C-alpha cells in the first residue's frame, strides 16, 4: 500500500491534525504520528488510511484516480479576464482617516478619466474574450462620475451576454442620477458601515449631518434595492474596536447578516507603526470575539450571522472549486481573470498593488490602457503564484485550502521569496484554518449549529471531521 504524503500540525487541545495534498484530513495523536513518520503503521492504521482516501495500491487504480481528481479540483483554474475593477475617479466627498492614499479632494483636478481614457476603456472591454463580465466601480467615490459609469454600463449591457455591476460607494450624496444608476436590477451596492453609528461617525463621516445623510441613504437604499443587492463591511480599528455586540446589532438592523470583518489596512509609515504594536495578535483576538458572539446568537434561533471570510475558509476545507475569492486561491495568477484599471489608465493586478504604487513603495502597475498589459512584469510575479513547491507550505496541512497573495507579501515583507511562514499572509491563514478545524472538531452543539448554517446543510455529521485513534 502507498500512503500519500500527510502534512501535520499539533492542535490547540493536544491532538494532531493530518491532511494530504488533495485536502483529505483527519485527527489523530502523537503515537500515530510516530508510527507513520517512522514507517511502522499497524493494520488498523492502514485500514483507516485506505478507507479515507489517503492511500492506494497501484498507480491508476480507483483510489489513485480518485485522489488525482480531488487534487486537480483543488487547483484554481484562471479563466478569461471577466472581472474588472474600474476607478473612474480618485476624488471623494469624504476624507476618512485611513484612506488618504486612495482618494483626492472632491474639487481637485486631473483625477478623473479623460474622454480619451474612457474610449480606450471601452475599446479594451470590447476586446475581451469573455461573454460574461463583472464590473466593479471603485474610487474615490465613483458616483461622483455617474456619467462615466452610465456609459460603461450601457456599453457592457450591449456587448456581453451577461453583465453585473457593483458600485463601491459611501452612499453620501445621492441625487436623482445616482439613484437611477443604482436602482437598476443588474447593479449592486457595496458600502461600509464601520460597526456602529458612533464609530462610523468617528472614522468616516465626522459631522452629524454627514452621518445622518449616510444612514438615511442606507435606509432608503435598502427599501428601494432590498438587502440582497446591498453588501456592507466594517473596517475595524484594532486600537479602538467597537463592541462586537453593537456591530452585530447595527448590521441586523439593516438586514445584513453576512459581515466581512476587516482591520484598517494601513499603508506606508502608519503600517510600520502598527506592525510594531503586534496588530495581528490583537486583530485575531477581536476576530475571535466576533465569531464567538455570532455562534452564541445563532444558537438562540431566529436570524443568523456569518463572518464572510471564515465561511469562505470553511467552504474551501469542505469543498473543492471554491475559488471565487481572488485573495485566497492556489495558484493565484495575477493579471489573468481580473484587473484593476486606475483613474489615469494604468493597470494593476490588485487594488493593494495600486495603493502601494500610489504611496511610492514600489511600482506595481502592469501596463496601461493605451499600450496594453506589461506581460514581462506579470510573468516575473507569476513565477511565484503557487504554494505547491513552497518549502513551508509543502509541510503545512492547510496547503490544499490556502493560497498565495504575492502583492500582500511584497507590501508587508518587501519580497516574495522569503520564508512563507513569517509572512502576514501565512500567520493570518494559519489562524483562520486553526479556527476552522477547531470548530469542525468541536462537540459543542452551539458550534455545530453555526457550522451547519455556514456550510449550508441542515445538520453537520460528525463523520465530516474524521478521527483515527
Amino acid at each position: 500500500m502507498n500512503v500519500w504524503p500527510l502534512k501535520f500540525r499539533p492542535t490547540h487541545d493536544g491532538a494532531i491534525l493530518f491532511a494530504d495534498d488533495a485536502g483529505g484530513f483527519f485527527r489523530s495523536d502523537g503515537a500515530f504520528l510516530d508510527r507513520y513518520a517512522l514507517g511502522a503503521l499497524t493494520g488498523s492504521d492502514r485500514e483507516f488510511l485506505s478507507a479515507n482516501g489517503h492511500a492506494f495500491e497501484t498507480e491508476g487504480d480507483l483510489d489513485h484516480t480518485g485522489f488525482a481528481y480531488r487534487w486537480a479540483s483543488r487547483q484554481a483554474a484562471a479563466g478569461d479576464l471577466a472581472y474588472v475593477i474600474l476607478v473612474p475617479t480618485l476624488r471623494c466627498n469624504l476624507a476618512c482617516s485611513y484612506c488618504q492614499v486612495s482618494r483626492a479632494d472632491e474639487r481637485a483636478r486631473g483625477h478623473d478619466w479623460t474622454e480619451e481614457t474612457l474610449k480606450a476603456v471601452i475599446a479594451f472591454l470590447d476586446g475581451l474574450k469573455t461573454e460574461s463580465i463583472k464590473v466593479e466601480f471603485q474610487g474615490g467615490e465613483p458616483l461622483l462620475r455617474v456619467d462615466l459609469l452610465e456609459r460603461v454600463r450601457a456599453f457592457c449591457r450591449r456587448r456581453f451576454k451577461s453583465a453585473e455591476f457593483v458600485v463601491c460607494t459611501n452612499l453620501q450624496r445621492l441625487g436623482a442620477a445616482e439613484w437611477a444608476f443604482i436602482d437598476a436590477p443588474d447593479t449592486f451596492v457595496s458600502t461600509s458601515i464601520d460597526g456602529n453609528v458612533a464609530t462610523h461617525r468617528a472614522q468616516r463621516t465626522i459631522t452629524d449631518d454627514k452621518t445622518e445623510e449616510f444612514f438615511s441613504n442606507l435606509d432608503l437604499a435598502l427599501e428601494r434595492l432590498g438587502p440582497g443587492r446591498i453588501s456592507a463591511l466594517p473596517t475595524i480599528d484594532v486600537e479602538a474596536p467597537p463592541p462586537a455586540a453593537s456591530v452585530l446589532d447595527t448590521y441586523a438592523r439593516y438586514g445584513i447578516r453576512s459581515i466581512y470583518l476587516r482591520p484598517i489596512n494601513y499603508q506606508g509609515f502608519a503600517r510600520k507603526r502598527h506592525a510594531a504594536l503586534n496588530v495581528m495578535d490583537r486583530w485575531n483576538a477581536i476576530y475571535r470575539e466576533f465569531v464567538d458572539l455570532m455562534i452564541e446568537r445563532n444558537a438562540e434561533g431566529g436570524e443568523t450571522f456569518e463572518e464572510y471570510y471564515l465561511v469562505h475558509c470553511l467552504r474551501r476545507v469542505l469543498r473543492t472549486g471554491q475559488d471565487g475569492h481572488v485573495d485566497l486561491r492556489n495558484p493565484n495568477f495575477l493579471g489573468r481573470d481580473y484587473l484593476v484599471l486606475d483613474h489615469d489608465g494604468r493597470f494593476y493586478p490588485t487594488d493593494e498593488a495600486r495603493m502601494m504604487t500610489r504611496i511610492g513603495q514600489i511600482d506595481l502597475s502592469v501596463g496601461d490602457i493605451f499600450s496594453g498589459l506589461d506581460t514581462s512584469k506579470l510573468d516575473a510575479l507569476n513565477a511565484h503564484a503557487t504554494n505547491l513547491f513552497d518549502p513551508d507550505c509543502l509541510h503545512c496541512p492547510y496547503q490544499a485550502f490556502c493560497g498565495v497573495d504575492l502583492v500582500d507579501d511584497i507590501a508587508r515583507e518587501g519580497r516574495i521569496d522569503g520564508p512563507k511562514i513569517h509572512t502576514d499572509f501565512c500567520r493570518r491563514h494559519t489562524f483562520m484554518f486553526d479556527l476552522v478545524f477547531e470548530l469542525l472538531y468541536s462537540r459543542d452543539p452551539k458550534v455545530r449549529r453555526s457550522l451547519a448554517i455556514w456550510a449550508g446543510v441542515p445538520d453537520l455529521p460528525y463523520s465530516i471531521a474524521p478521527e483515527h485513534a
Partner: protein
Amino acid sequence: MADRKADLDAENSAAMEVEIEPALSDFAGAAVTRLGYLHPRATFNVRDHVIVVEGAIGDAPTMRRDVLHALYRERISDRGEDLRTRLIEGLLSR
C-alpha cells in the same frame, strides 16, 4: 538595556540535545536548515546522533517536539516526493 542584554545572555546560555532515531538520520541536515529559520534566535547543529540546540530555546518540551517534527516532516516529504512528482506529471501529460 542592561536588563535586555541579561535576558538574552540567559537565553543564550541554554542548550539541549535531541536524539536522532537511525531512521531519521538522513534528514537531520535538512531539518536543521529549516529549524534555523523557524527559530532564528536559536542555533541547531548535528553532532553524532543528536541535534544540539543552543540559544533561545524557550519551552524545552515544545522545542524538543519541534525538532522531532522537523525531522519527521523532512522524511515524509522525501518519501512522498516520487508520488507527488508522478501525480503532477501524470495530470499534466493528459
